[in-house]
């Protein structure tokens, strides 16, 4: 009986070995099963927001405003799933900054948005006019202020006509950018093809290794960016108290939607591509370890139910935020160092670090 069991285990192991996932399958999984669906979801949510803003502006009401705010939350979560995809169409035409100018240490965006609202700048309520303005007034950060910042109560009545029109134009701009991201990820001989079929003649990805490094890099650097730009700036440290107004989307209460969407998107990319299973036998446990940490991060995010201003002052929720920062560090090391090493890649050390 024992011999039979050993035989079964050996057979299973050899089948598993024989079925080891190939780089092409990883890359196809990443593009087809994860990135494209998430970009489409962001596009759909953005078009929904654009129509909700049109409806609100046509007939201002508390209900219409609530619908727009809810749709804004969906867009933020969907943005989280694709905001870290800092390759391809996101990096062209300033789309990353136009979608979300963040971090904004000097509050430039806020000052510019307030100036537009107070002067009722006619250029900002026409799509082409808005697109010629500062990136900081074109995207989701500006819309957060329009929908939920000081003076947003005017959106429920005729006094908010200009504010609403500005918000509607921002939403149209976000939807247009989302459409461009879709076009970029579905373009023939574009980034999707280059990632899935790397070859020497590509200007971006010339080999499986380069394409896999890009994939791992998206998550490793995405985790760093999320922690350093979206989380650490507002949570308490040993030296300084919490600064909840440094949290992205604190006005609309969508901070955790952003963080949750981001973690969800990165977990999806690792899981959906099965990249963490494309490792030598000795590293096979890594896939489960990484997913375990992603789930820990999502659990921590779920614990933060209060608006961030209150969450940072509530011991359990503040602890969950601190834990989230730790987990993102651990995940960054697991993906950027352990997974990268297991795959024979160079990510997050010499290359791609901006030094």
């Amino acid at each position, binding site marked *: 009986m024992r011999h039979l069991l050993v035989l079964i285990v050996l057979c299973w192991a050899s089948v598993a070995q024989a079925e080891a996932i190939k780089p092409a399958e990883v890359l196809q999984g990443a593009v087809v099963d994860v990135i494209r669906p998430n970009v489409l979801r962001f596009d759909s949510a953005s078009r929904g927001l654009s129509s909700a803003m049109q409806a609100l502006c046509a007939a201002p009401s508390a209900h219409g405003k609530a619908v727009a705010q809810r749709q804004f939350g969906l867009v933020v979560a969907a943005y989280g799933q694709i905001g870290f995809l800092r390759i391809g169409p996101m*990096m*062209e*035409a*300033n789309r990353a*900054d136009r979608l979300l100018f963040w*971090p*904004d*240490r000097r509050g430039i965006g806020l000052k510019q948005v307030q100036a537009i609202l107070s002067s009722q700048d006619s250029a900002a309520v026409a799509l082409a006019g808005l697109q010629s303005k*500062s*990136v900081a007034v074109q995207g989701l950060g500006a819309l957060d202020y329009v929908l939920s910042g000081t003076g947003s109560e005017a959106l429920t009545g005729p006094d908010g006509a200009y504010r609403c029109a500005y918000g509607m134009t921002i939403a149209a701009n976000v939807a247009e950018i989302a459409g461009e991201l879709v076009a970029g990820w579905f373009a023939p001989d574009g980034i999707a093809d280059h990632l899935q079929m790397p070859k020497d003649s590509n*200007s*971006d990805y010339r080999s499986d*290794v*380069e394409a896999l490094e890009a994939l791992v890099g998206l998550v490793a650097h995405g985790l*760093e*960016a999320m*922690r*350093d*730009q979206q989380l*650490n*700036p507002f949570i308490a440290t040993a030296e300084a108290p919490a600064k909840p107004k*440094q949290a992205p989307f604190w006005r609309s209460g969508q901070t955790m939607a952003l963080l949750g969407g981001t973690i969800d998107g990165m977990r999806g990319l690792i899981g959906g591509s099965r990249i963490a299973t494309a490792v030598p036998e000795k590293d096979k446990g890594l896939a489960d370890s990484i997913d375990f940490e992603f789930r820990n991060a999502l659990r921590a995010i779920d614990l933060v139910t209060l608006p961030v201003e209150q969450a940072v002052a509530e011991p359990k929720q503040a602890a969950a935020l601190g834990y989230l920062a730790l987990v993102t560090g651990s995940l960054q*090391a697991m993906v950027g*160092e352990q997974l990268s090493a297991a795959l024979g890649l*160079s990510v997050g*050390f*010499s*290359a*791609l*670090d*901006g*030094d």
Partner: protein
Amino acid sequence: MWQRRAFLKAAGAGFAASLMPRQALALEQSELVFASAVQTASGSYGAVLLGEAGDVIAQVALPDRGHDVTISAKAGRGVVFARQPGTFAVVFDPSGQAAPVTLTSPAGRHFYGHGVFSPDGKLLYATESDFEAAQGVVGIYDATDGYRRMGEFPTYGTGPHEMLLMPDGVTLVVANGGIETHPDFGRAELNLDTMDPSVVFIDRRDGTLVGQLRLDAGLHQLSIRHMAIDARGRVWFGCQYKGAPSDSPQLVGHASMEGEITLLELPAETLAGLRNYVGSVAASRDGATIAVSSPEGNLLVAIDAEGRRPVLVDSLRSGCGLAPDGSGFVASSGLGALVGLAGAEREARQFDFQFDNHLLRIS
């Protein structure tokens, strides 16, 4: 130039006794020594000194990730600077006689990973950030007094990166990358739309601005980061482009104290291989050849400084560190490789640690 015999003499018997016999032998027989910040297989950070044969002669532990190393034979010390936005620099004795000393940047400042000694070894200059004001500064440290910070002067720009001492021994040249960062936001680049990179020449005696050179305004997102000085005293620089990846601007150029600044016209294929990212720049010992590396494009390019054209293009996965070697160069990689380039007769070596971006030739 650090002379091996002088080094051994200065180091004395105490030094030799402090080394393992094998390491002492390696050092004695060594013609060359390289230094680099590294990450070990276990994930910890440090710096290593390598001999001609590739033996690790000494190691220095670091509290976090380092970046570049500078060394002074006169001071008898080397310094590893923290990668930005780190706040430490570790001063070590290459002879191993004195314990390393860790410096901390003052409140409101962090290091940018690069620095240089004065010719007499008495002063250490480090590129730093006054991050609240988003201004670069050169921190001045007294090597004769425990590396006490004596003061600072401005770099006349934001995001200073590499700094070199010009052949006159008086002028510092600083690459102001133009990118604003702030420790509250990690390494996030906060001003990509308003970047203003420049090459500046500064009189190190009083911090006065000797000259400041900028590329065309349309290239304001071309961050000037790393430099090397050729035989004619021209400062060659390598850039990292922060605009759209499809833009592919030229990335390598040279500047002079006479006020010239120009970009080289690299062939399209070579330029594409650099992937908008030059990670380090080095000059050959005779200053006739310049090498640039791109760890993103896994590419190394050697350029004839006089003819202003590439003479050799080679590939090295994650290759970034460059240092002169023989008539050519040696390159190091983020995957632990050390290889010869452009005529350097060096057998490729593979280490179990990862080299950081820069490789320094000590002697």
